């Protein structure tokens, strides 16, 4: 029972971290700008201005769009995995493993790994600045989803 609660809490934490990584604007920060997958905030004369990334990274807009897609997909799959896990808790016969949940979590893990890797390799290769907390959270989510995948594949259903 405790193990179950722990796994659910960990899964929800992973979902929250993934959502923050996708939504919060802090993939790449400099002293006067923060940017992420969707837009860019620039500090001009003590006021923040928002601009679309399309103009900023015209050359890399294809890669940026694929990172957008994979991080959104990672969020979707991990949320789906939570629902499927809860459903399988009630429908799975005793002694079976949570394979479907594990597969969904695995896809989420691969998606966020692909996205973060593309971001690392293709974007901001020549810019000054550093990676922000959303980027770090993306990699932490990768580790957590990987761990959850293994957990679901190994876990066996005991009687309710």
């Amino acid at each position, binding site marked *: 029972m405790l193990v179950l609660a722990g796994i659910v809490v960990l899964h929800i934490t992973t979902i929250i971290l993934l959502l923050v990584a996708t939504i919060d604007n802090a993939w790449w920060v400099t002293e006067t700008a923060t940017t992420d997958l969707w837009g860019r905030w620039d500090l001009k004369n003590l006021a923040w201005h928002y601009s679309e990334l*399309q103009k900023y990274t*015209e050359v890399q807009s*294809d890669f940026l*769009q*694929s990172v*957008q*897609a*994979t991080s959104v*997909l990672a969020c*979707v799959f991990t949320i789906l995995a939570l629902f499927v896990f809860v459903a399988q808790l009630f429908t799975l016969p005793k002694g079976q493993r949570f394979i479907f949940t594990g597969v969904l979590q695995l896809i989420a893990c691969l998606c966020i790994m692909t996205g973060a890797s593309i971001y690392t390799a293709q974007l901001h290769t020549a810019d000054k600045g550093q990676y922000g907390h959303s980027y770090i959270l993306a990699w932490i989510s990768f580790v957590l989803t990987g761990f959850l995948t293994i957990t679901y594949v190994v876990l066996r259903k005991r009687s309710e």
Partner: protein
Amino acid sequence: MLRVLALAAVVLLGIAPEPSQAISIYTGWERHALVGSDIRLSCSFFSWRFVSDDVSFTWIYRPDGSRETVSIAHYAGGEAYTDNKGRFKDRVEFVGNPKRRDGSILIKNLDFSDNGTFTCDAKNPPDIVGRPSSVRLLVFENLPIQAGVITGAIIGVVLGLLVLIVVIYYLMRFLVARRVFSLSVSKHGKKKKEGSQQRQLWTPPPLTCYPLP
């Protein structure tokens, strides 16, 4: 009561607005095109009256960053007139069908200097009160991919595949279960049938009379 109703009807009819005589003109909002290509700028209008013989279309061009406008195409009295002096000389052609309320023009061989705003003004006498509509032309060297097209495509394809796989999986399970069920039913039925057939095959031997020794 009846008198109040009659009074109200008269008042309402009195203040009811007459059918609008304004003409509504429609063009695109923004058009993107490649250098060297042709583009068709569409213009159509809506009017409460039938298309008259004096219907007219006028296209006016204003370059980006300039306040000056210049007419480049005009259709009136059944004849189309296009630019024969300015920067669109021999490049613009009237391709609309005024009888069908279409006043589109075709601009050939676009260049970067063609960036600007094209305004279409249509008149359908006596319906002449209308607001001209403008379309902005942007000429690119290579067309940029619209924001979000790739994103949407990847997400759509992956989720679609997932739905497809789940549906196929459950369909297979359903079909296999049905086959197993029908097989077991037919097996049970066959056993019963075979038993009855055998009984029929076995006919009692014919009775023959043996003479008494």
